[in-house]
């Protein structure tokens, strides 16, 4: 993507995000969203975040299902455990990076 397209992407996403934040404040009392959409949107954060995370820590080779980067997989699983226990972003990132570096040397 060339530089002009990147600017266009930033502007369009910025504008769209602002509208998603603003539209319901602007039209309050006049429009209501269907309840079903509400229910479905509650599952958006876990679904899309997992769709980002799992392929990033587990990338298998085209033939089999062995992980291409076992250090990433193991460090990622450890980070999930730390996030579960501590709910702390800094601890999760630091421990995950540290584990990945150690495992890279080790494996």
């Amino acid at each position: 993507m060339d530089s002009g397209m990147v600017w266009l992407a930033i502007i369009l996403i910025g504008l769209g995000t602002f509208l998603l934040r603003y539209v319901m404040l602007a039209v309050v009392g006049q429009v209501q969203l269907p309840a079903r959409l509400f229910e479905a949107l509650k599952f958006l954060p876990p679904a899309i975040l997992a769709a980002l995370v799992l392929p990033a820590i587990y990338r298998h080779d085209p033939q089999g299902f062995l992980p291409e980067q076992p250090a990433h997989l193991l460090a990622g699983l450890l980070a999930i455990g730390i996030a579960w226990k501590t709910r702390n972003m800094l601890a999760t990132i630091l421990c995950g990076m540290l584990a990945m570096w150690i495992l890279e040397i080790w494996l």
Partner: protein
Amino acid sequence: MSSPARPETARSTFLEGVRDISVLIPGVIPFGMVAGIAALQAGLSPLQAFCGSLCIFAGASQLVAYELIGNAAPLALVVIGALTVNLRFLLYSTSLAPHMQGLSQLRRALNAYIMTDQAYAFGIRRYTEFPERPYAESYYLGAALPLLATWLLSTLTGILLGSGVPAEWGLEFAIPLCFIAILVPAVKDRPGLLAALTGGSVAILAGGLPWKLSLIIGALCGILAGVLARGRRNG
């Protein structure tokens, strides 16, 4: 958020918001730095990386956009992918809307621009649990504005850091780690866990598709799984 002894003013209420949100600031700093690093990794210029944080001001969607740009996805997909992540703002603004009905459209627009997961969570608590206390909008501003300042400064730090760190350090691994730290607390019950497991597995299986289409497909399948699981539980 205890009941105050002195009469509340707009200023004291604003500062109360600042104080309440300050415990969350250390968690935002690494996220903002990762956003700066990820933008450079995807090939954005430092100025574009900074303007991304300023214009969009929504970390997860910025990281999605940078990931898609790095994978040479077409413009439409980059925009749709990033905005999908931000659909949750429709929920937040719908729930804040009745409380902001009396404000001018300009004030509502400002409150919309600074809306984040954290500012919403603190703001809505103030509106719903203490409806009798005045200056709730000042409280919301006090909670939201420090997050914006932190976001911009930490992005800037990430940009400066990201351009100086050698590639062998594998700093880009901080991106999925950052997502893990947001994902785990977002899984609140069994249907949520099912949504996450489905979304992640489908995204892995669809990994061969071009332009990271696996992301949107995984997310949609995950939402569907969550909705079906909830339906079964209730029915």
